[in-house]
Each structure stands twice: as C-alpha cells, then as structure tokens.
C-alpha cells in the first residue's frame, strides 16, 4: 500500500547499510494502525453495551491518550536493551490488544466487571503503545537527523491513524466483526514483533530465540482465539444479522443475540426478532394498555407470561394502582440480561429492580398448573408459535388453565403474530381463545420492525373495547386506542381449527404461512 523508497531515508548507519530503516517505518505505521483500532474497538463496544456513545467515546479517547502519555513517560526509565524491550512491548500489545474484544465480550455476562475490564484494557493498550514510539525513535536516533526522525515517525504515525479510521467502519466491522478484527490486529502486531527480531538483530546482544518463541506463542494463542471466536459469534450468524452483533449467549433454552444499528439495538431469540429499540414502544404500548384500560385502568395484580425483556413490565408500572407484577419467563439468562445489560435495563426503565416485580423462571404452562393467586390482568408475550414447545402455550388447555387464575373482571392481552403475514395463525389464536371460553376482541397496529402486528384482547364476559388511553404515552392516545380495533379486509377472519394440545394446529399454520416469507 505504501511503497517506501530508499531515497527517502538517506542516512549512514548499521541499519541503513542493510536497508532496514524504511521497513522500520512500516512498523510505525502498523503500530499506529493497531493502536487506534484497539481504541476504536473499545469505544464501539463501550457505546454498544453502555449506551451514550458521546460519553463513552470521550472517556475512551481520554483514557487512551493519557495512557499514551504514561507510556511515553515510562519509556524514560528504560535505559538498556532498547531493541529487546521494543519487541517485548510489541508482543504484549499483540496479546492484550488482540484479545481485548473477546475479553470484553466475555465480560458482558458479568456486567459489574465490564467497565473495570474495559478501562483496564484501554489503559493497558494505551500505555504499551505509548512506550513503542519513544523506544523506536531512540533506536533510530543515530541513523537519522532529529528533524527527519521526528518528521517521519510522526508522518507514519498519523498515516496509520488514517488507515485505521478508514478501515474500521468501512471494512473491518462489517466484514470481520469486532471479535475477529481485534484478533486479526493482534496477529498483525505479533507478526511485526516477530519480524522485528530479524530487523533489529544487529542492535541486540545475545540470543533472540526466546523473543521469537514468545511472539510465536502469542500468534498461536491468537489463531486459537480466531478458531474459538465462533463460540462467541458465528461467522454464519453475522451474515444472518444485518447489524453488528454485540451480545450472544446460548442458554439451555435458546440463543440470545443482541445487535446494534444506527437506529438502536435489537433482540433476537433463536434468530427471530423480538423487538427493535427504535419502535418497540408501539408494540408494548399496544400490548399492555388496551387490557389495562378495558379492566378499568386500576389494576392491582398483574401477570406477565413471557416478556423477559421487561418492556411490557415498564408499561404496566405506569399505573400507580399496581401492587404486584408476576413475570413468568422460561429463561433465567434472559431475565437476568434484561435487568443487568445497561442498554436493555435503561430501555425497560429498570423495571426488574422495582420491588413490586417478581420474576419466576419456569415453563409458563407448568407454572400455571400450580399457580393460585387470581390476577386482574394477564399480558402474554410469548415468541411466535414456531415450535411445538411454544405451540402448547397457545392451546385451549393453556387458556383454560389461565382462565382459572383470573378474577371475574380480569382482562387479558396476547401477542398473536401478524394477521397479515400469518392470517390463519392469527385467527387460530382468536378462535382458540373463544373455544376456551373467552370473549375476544382482535386488534392490530403497525410496528415498522415487524409490519402489521396482531393482538387479542379477551375477557370472561362480552365487553366493549376501550376508547381511552392513559396520558403520557408515545404512541397511544384516545384516537389511536380506538383505531387499534378497526378491522381491515386483508386481515379479516379466515376459517381455521382450534389449537389444541393434541392437534397443535397453530404450529402447522404458522410454519406453512411464514415459510412463504423465508
């Protein structure tokens, strides 16, 4: 990319005699690029996970730059064996910088440590990178005049910065992803270190075998990291998601993936989008408030089945009369993530920290068999019925179990997939609710991330749909509330079977309908 001519470095010395000086400036370029890439990685991950990118980038840049200063200052204490120290620092940067993104990914799971790990890594990498240039300049001080030395080292340093800042958003993040970018640059760093054992050999006393072995060992580790990177995020998976994956976890029940885009972040369970932070308010307001208002707007005991993202609970907690919210979600990893993953916890307004909220991690159907307390409101927010295990949560048996746990005045809302894309599935849910003895009011709204989305509002006796919305919502006002219950021709009822445990009609409808869009 950058062709260096001998004419550019016309100085006599042991290094220049062997034409090595220009190549050493290539080192400067690589070091500078790597250093900035690590900084960008840390900044990106921090803003993904902690949100508020202005603060995060300022903090990371600040810490990184000051760490460079620390490194430069520390270089003053190194008096002997400059070449050897330089290579050691190079190998250390390769190790720490190379593993920075995987380390940060792993520390998501234990979020209390995330910030500690983040700032420690930035500080460490910055310090090491800060050590490099002064050492290199001192190595070259006898081969170049001071003005040339400063001019060329800084030139390549800033070119490196440019290379990094162009490569990072245009190529590295979209093609390699954060983890592999980090490992790849670690490898590059280590390769440069290894190469330098030959380049700087004339300046080193004694054997260099130990140094080379260390460099090779670090490279082997990084290659292994590359191979293992699939367990953090799979390359195939990265192709699957349009946006950068910032969190993945395979739990006993499902694969959780969070991606980040310009519009916000998205939660996927087993590859199916659950919400996008950009428009989830439309979905969750539509899911929660019609039931709340249908039951009089003064709920006391609320049951949430599914909804481990805590976003429905956020809407429920707007009502001051709520005394308790019982949330039953299968996967403890999901509810813990919603409580502790900062962007998610912010989005659900830390609803899991509210003392009125009780989380139970159990299969909703098995829980219902033993549940006792009657509820005023039930909000059902299960993933779409795309497996038999999920399909059972939409059966007459399930709704009958639920019915037995409701007060006579209770209202119930169910997310019911798309009445447009999966029309039979949608009406199958409505018909099943009716077969279980509920009076049902189907309703729908547009959620840009999903398309036209359907819900069921159900009560134990016939009822009129609600006409007023609580104040202060982003999407629903009185007119929008009334609009939810308007019907449309292309989503009107179709003849369907009732979904029972012993026929699982819904899963079969759903599979045949969504197949057309996959």
């Amino acid at each position, binding site marked *: 990319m950058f062709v260096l001519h001998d004419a550019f470095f016309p100085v006599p010395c042991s290094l220049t005699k062997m034409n090595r000086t220009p190549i050493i400036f290539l080192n400067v370029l690589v070091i500078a690029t790597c250093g900035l890439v690590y900084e960008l990685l840390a900044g990106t991950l921090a803003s993904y996970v902690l949100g508020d990118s202005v603060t995060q980038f300022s903090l990371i840049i600040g810490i990184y730059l000051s760490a460079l200063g620390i490194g430069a200052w520390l270089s003053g204490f190194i008096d002997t064996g400059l070449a050897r120290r330089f290579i050691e620092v190079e190998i250390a940067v390769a190790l720490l910088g190379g593993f920075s993104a995987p380390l940060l990914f792993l520390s998501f799971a234990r979020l209390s440590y995330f910030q500690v790990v983040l700032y420690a890594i930035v500080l460490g990498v910055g310090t090491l990178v800060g050590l490099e240039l002064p050492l290199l300049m001192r190595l070259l001080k006898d081969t170049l005049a001071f003005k040339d030395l400063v001019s060329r080292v800084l030139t390549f340093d800033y070119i490196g910065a440019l290379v990094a800042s162009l490569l990072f958003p245009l190529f590295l993040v979209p093609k390699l992803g954060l983890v592999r970018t980090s490992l790849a640059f670690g490898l590059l760093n280590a390769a440069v270190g290894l190469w330098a054992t030959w380049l700087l050999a004339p300046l080193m006393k004694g054997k260099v075998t130990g140094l080379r072995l260390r460099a090779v060992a670090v490279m082997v580790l990084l290659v292994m990291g590359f191979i293992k990177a699939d367990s953090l995020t799979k390359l195939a998976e990265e192709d699957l998601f349009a946006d950068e994956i910032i969190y993945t976890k395979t739990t006993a029940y499902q694969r959780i993936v969070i991606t980040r885009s310009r519009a916000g972040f998205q939660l996927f369970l087993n590859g199916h989008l659950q919400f996008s932070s950009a428009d989830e308010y439309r979905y969750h307001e539509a899911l929660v408030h019609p039931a709340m208002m249908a039951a009089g707007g003064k709920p006391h005991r609320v049951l949430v089945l599914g909804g481990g993202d805590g976003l429905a609970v956020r809407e429920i907690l707007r009502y001051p009369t709520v005394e308790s919210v019982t949330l039953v979600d299968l996967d403890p990893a999901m509810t813990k993530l919603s409580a502790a993953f900062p962007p998610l916890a912010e989005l659900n307004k830390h609803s899991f920290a509210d003392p009125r909220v009780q989380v139970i991690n159990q299969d909703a159907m098995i829980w219902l068999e033993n549940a006792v307390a009657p509820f005023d409101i039930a909000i059902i927010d299960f993933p779409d019925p795309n497996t*038999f295990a999920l399909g059972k949560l939409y059966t007459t048996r399930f709704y009958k179990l639920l019915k037995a746990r409701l007060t006579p005045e209770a209202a119930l809302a169910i997310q019911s997939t798309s009445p447009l894309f999966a029309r039979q599935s949608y009406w199958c849910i409505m018909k099943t609710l009716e077969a279980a003895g509920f009076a049902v009011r189907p309703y729908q709204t547009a959620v840009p991330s999903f398309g036209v989305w359907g819900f069921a509002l159900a009560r134990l006796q016939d009822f009129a749909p609600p006409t007023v919305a609580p104040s202060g919502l982003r999407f629903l006002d009185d007119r929008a509330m009334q609009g939810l219950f308007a019907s449309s021709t292309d989503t009107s009822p179709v003849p369907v079977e009732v979904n029972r445990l*012993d026929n*699982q009609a819904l899963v079969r409808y759903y599979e045949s309908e969504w197949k057309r869009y996959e």
Partner: protein
Amino acid sequence: MPSKEPSSQLKPTTVDLNKISPGAKESSPSKLENPLLDSPPLPISPSPLLPSASLTRRELLAAFLGLPVALAACSATKTPSLPQGEIVGASNDTGHRLRDGQHVEVAADHWQRVKVVIVGGGVAGLAAARKLLQAGVDDFVLLELEREAGGTARSGTSPLVAYPWGAHYLPAPMKENVALVGLLEEMGLLEGKDQDGEPIVAEQFLCRDPEERIFFKGRWYEGLYLRAGATSDDLAQFDRFNNEVKKLVAWRDAKGRRAFALPIANSSDDAEINQLDRLTMGEWLNRHSLTSPRLRWLVDYACRDDYGMTVEQTSAWAGLFYFCSRVKKPGDDAEPLITFPEGNGRLVNYLFDKAKAKARLGFAAAEIIPIETNGRAGVDVIAVSHDGETSRGFHAERVIFAAPHFLSRFVIRDYRDQPPAHVAEFEYGAWLVANLFLRDRPKDKGFPLCWDNVFYDSDSLGYVVATHQRGIDRGATVFTYYYPLCDEDPKQARQRLLDKDWAQLADVVLTDMSRAHTEIRSLVERLDVMRWGHAMIRPRPNFVRSAARREAAKAYRNIHFAHTDLSGVALFEEAFYHGNRAAEEIVGGKQ
C-alpha cells in the same frame, strides 16, 4: 397335552429372592460375572441353557438388531462404556418355583375365611376388585405375586417424571364401552359428552401433538407411514388398504354388531369376520395384492406394537382389529390416545388405590383347590410370600383367577392333575423394555422429538418420551424403549431374553438407539431393564376366535377367570372387561 413351558429342563432353584428383588442391586459393567444379575431363572446350577457367557458382542447384537448393525457397532476398536442401571421387576423365580409345584404348608392358625380371593393384581384383578367394592362386597383379598400391583401396566417414578414399564396408552373409548367410560369419568378424565353422546376426554390427557415420527435413512419424518420417497403405487396401495379398513369399519352383522368392537365380546361372531382368524395378516395382505414394502412395514409395526408378533405371525382378525376397532365411522381418524407420563400406570395406580386395603402384595397363590364341604362349593387358596417364608390359607367361596391363563395349570389343583386342552393354546410373547434416563435430549435431523419415536429399520418399536405429556420440552428426560421378541417359538424368545444379563441388554438397547442418536451413550445417565417373560398373549391364527379361548373364559367350579388373554389380545380394555365380567358373575350369583 405337554407343557409349552420348558419345565422338564428347569430345576427348582434355591436362590435367595431378596438378593434379586427390584432395587436390591445396582449393576455395572464390571459386574458382568455377578450370578445374581445373570439369568435369574436358573443362575446357580450349571445348565445347558446358559449360552450367554459364550456369546460374543457381535453375536449378541446380531441376534437382536441384525448383522449389519452388529458389524458396524463392533467395528469400533473398543467396547463402548455403559451407564449405571439394573434389571428391575418381574419375579421370575417365585413364578418358576410355583410352576414347579413347590409344596407350601399353611399352619392351621394362618387360615381365614373370605368371600372372594382375587388372584392377580393386574388390570383385570384390580378391575374386579373395584367392581366388588362397588357392589358392596368388601370381604375379599387380592393376591399379587409382585411387590407392586399393575401387571404389565406398571410404571416407575423419578424426581423428574414418572415413566411406564409396559402398556402406555389407552385409545379413548366410544360410548358403547359403558364400563370403561364410567371409569374414566370417575377418574375425572372426561369433560362431558358431545352431541352424539360420545365421551369427551379432557385435552391434557390426550396424547399431545406431535404424536409420532419415524427414522429412515438418517432423518426423522412425521407420522408412522413413511410418505417420503413413496411411489404412486405405494400411495395407491396405502389408499386401498385404508379403503378395506373403511369397509370393515362400516360392516354390521344381522344383529347390527360391528365386525371389531371393544370390548371384543361386543364384536360380531359372524362367520365372514371370524374366518379372518384362519389367515395370517400377511396372507390377508397378499390376498388383497397389498405388497408395498412401506405398507407392509406399517402393518407389521402395528402387529408388533400391539401384539408382539410380526405381520406373518399375527391372525388377520387381530391385525384388522387393530386398525378397525378404534375408528367410529368409516373415514374417521382413529380415536385419540389417552396417555400419561407413566403410561397406563396412572390407570392401574388409581384402581389399586381403591383396592389397597384388600391387596396382599408380594403374595402369590401357590395352590387353588376347589372343594365341597357339606354340599357347599368353595375354594381353598394357599398363598406364599415373595420370599417363600410366609404362607397363608384362605377358605373362599369364590376365586377370581385374574392371572395369565397359562398359570392355571400350575396352581389350580384339578388342572395340575388334568389340564384342560385349552390351556396349552395360550402362548405368550416376551418383551424387553428399558427406561433410559437422559441428562439432555439428543439432537435431531428432521421432524422434532415426538411422544412415540420409531426406527424403520429396527426390530424394536423405538421409544416413547415420558416428559412429552408432562409438557417438559427441554433438558433431562426419560425414554422408554420397547423390543418385542417375535421368535416363531415363544419359548425360545423367552429363553433368549432371560439368559441375557443387564450389560448385554443395555448394550443392545444403546446400540439400537444409536441408529438415530449417535451421541446417546453420552446422554444416558442410567438405563434400567425389564424382562417380561410372558408379556402378552399371542393372537396367532385359529386362536383368537377359537372355541378353546371361549372355553377358557368359562368358570370352573367356583373359579371365575378374568384376564385379557381370554380375549386373545393384550389390551387394557379387554382386561378391564374381563375383570368386571368375572366380578359380575359373582355378584350376580349372590343376588
């Protein structure tokens, strides 16, 4: 008639029964030589019938699973490891001792008077007990050889889920089966009746969808009929077969009776239908030019599943009974299946609960002696405890013999001396059942895990999943594996099963399971085995509709017979029917 049993070669043994009682021993692969786990019927004295020691692994696997599987499994350099486990249940020794006519003395003060003694605590005996109690007769005892009631409908429990050891489903009865509908109603399984008066079984007790799948060439397919890759001729034959079934479902005799009804006693005895019993099911298919391998596989599977016999062995009457008796109207689906995690264990546990106070578990009837004192007929029953230590005598007015009929000639004194011809007609198949406790589920290719999971290429019936009906869809589970031994000679089948030890049978089960689940050995934490020597009556041609079978059901002196084998097929419905019938014979006789 000579005995069908190999009694002449079997010597009474003096094995300490405690040592092989269920749960007493835990075996491991290293305990292969443990004589207590080897071949319970004759473990101590050297015997020419003990071939297992000399059997190589390849021979063993080939005998159960066929040579290709055996060769493939044995190509690995080392023998794969086995999980924990043991042989459970079925007290072969006590049974064999009684068969061999061990003499039991009862002290004079150990005799008591009762109205009725019920011999056998399986479905028939428990149904009879319930009926007696309903009729206000509570002066009876029920003797059960095993320490648990339930017969082949028995079940087990684990902290995760209960699981079956044998029979594991009951097709929802039609309204005509009043007695059985009554039982289900009493148990709270029904939600009322539909407009035709047919009982509605509550959804949660019907087998949850997806019900069954089949493994073929590396992939699972939904259902039991293999549609994938079927030719148009295959499908045409399948349709023709279904049309024949429809015709038989619609068929009525002059008295308006169905060709195949449950209980079988309500079926037509018209010659046109009865003559089906002269053919094998295979011959019947041939006569209808039904040669499609897939279709024959399906029918063969049905015969093996319900009767433990191949399509070439089963009576065509019995084979068609399977397809026709559970369909209300031509073209309807078969009645849905009622099932529980523990299979029919739920039903027998309910029945047992009602009769618990009357039951003597671990007590076998050693001798049944019809007597006549002062012109009054009665029956003396001598019972012996499981360990052979304790004996009891009962002066009974009546006996309900609710044990398999072949036992009658070993315990009924008159039959011992002069067995009626019909007794020898009762043949029983042997079954291997295993429960596999998995820490997690295997990964699947194709259709997901169902309740019933069948291997197309195996002589086994595959496995049912205990957690399916419980709604536990992830993580640890229990698979119940079934293998009927369909040898032509049931005696040989029994021998072939009973001379294998736990490790051999566990290896057979795991090797068979590996066809579809290569990682099964790493998932199974425990594997228990049940060897049912006399699991099911064999409905072979000229037996099901025979005079011998009808004769056997007739009361002898004051002994009333009640067992599913009297119907020629092993079904809950039939056992329940005969239990009720026998009890009614007594209750009716009183009135």
